[in-house]
């Protein structure tokens, strides 16, 4: 914490970018819960009511969405 503060004083731009990077990674990590929730909700509807309402395209879409979200998270961790 002290080193971060001293870095903030010495080189404010770099320290600020590090903080923004951490913030973006936290947002993206929390964001990963959303596609997981969507997939769980799609499964839950089928389990509870047993409806067959042509949701296969949606399920495929939700999995692609999860994969893309994970990809963006790792991309942010690497390139920032």
């Amino acid at each position, binding site marked *: 914490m002290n080193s971060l503060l001293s870095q903030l004083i010495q080189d404010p731009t770099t320290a600020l970018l590090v903080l923004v990077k951490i913030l*973006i990674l936290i947002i993206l990590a929390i964001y990963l819960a959303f596609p997981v929730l969507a997939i769980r909700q799609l499964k839950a509807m089928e389990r509870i*009511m047993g409806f067959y309402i042509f949701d296969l395209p949606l399920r495929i879409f939700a999995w692609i969405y999860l994969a893309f979200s994970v990809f963006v998270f790792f991309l942010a961790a690497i390139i920032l």
Partner: protein
Amino acid sequence: MPDIFVAKDKIKKEKSKSPLNHKLKSELEAEKAATWGRKLGVLSVVAFRPPYLRFDDQDPDEEIIIFVRRHLITNLKWFLMVILFSLVPLLVFTLVDLDLVPLNFRFIGLLTWYLLIFAFGFERFLVWFFDINIVTNKRVIDVNVPNILLRDITQVPLGNIQDITAETGGFMRSILAFGDVRVQTAGSVPEVNFEAVPKPNKLAQILNDLWGEI
């Protein structure tokens, strides 16, 4: 032991207990099938007697009469919001000088922004997709999904129905012929609402016919 003599009244009662009356089977069925169609796809709003729709606790003699969702136009509000939010980065990049921000940060920021917009749109779509009403020859099922974390399923036997009201009000609703159908019940759930469904009067008519059977 088989019955040798069966009273005429009993035969009549058994006939009247059949799942659907003659009127619904002949005249109305043809009309409704022509009006609403039977196909059920991802974006289907209404289907009359959908052939492939089943649910877990459906009785063997239970038949799905109608499957209905909110009208597609009810998605317009969030759809326009998604388009509007999608244009925000374009405005920011043209109006604000972002030279101080490194390119990799701009790129990831842009991706994060669009992911958030997508999450919003997808959540709204799923809420619309799962918010369904089903009318069978035995009960009314209302699946209410206010958001992705909440789910509320109400089942009302047709015998518990007290009153059926169809409402169409407002400019958009009058033009596109959609509205609400309110079903008042005698059970623990006082009312079941079919919100923004297409052709509410015809749906109320079907419910009335089924209710009259009980």
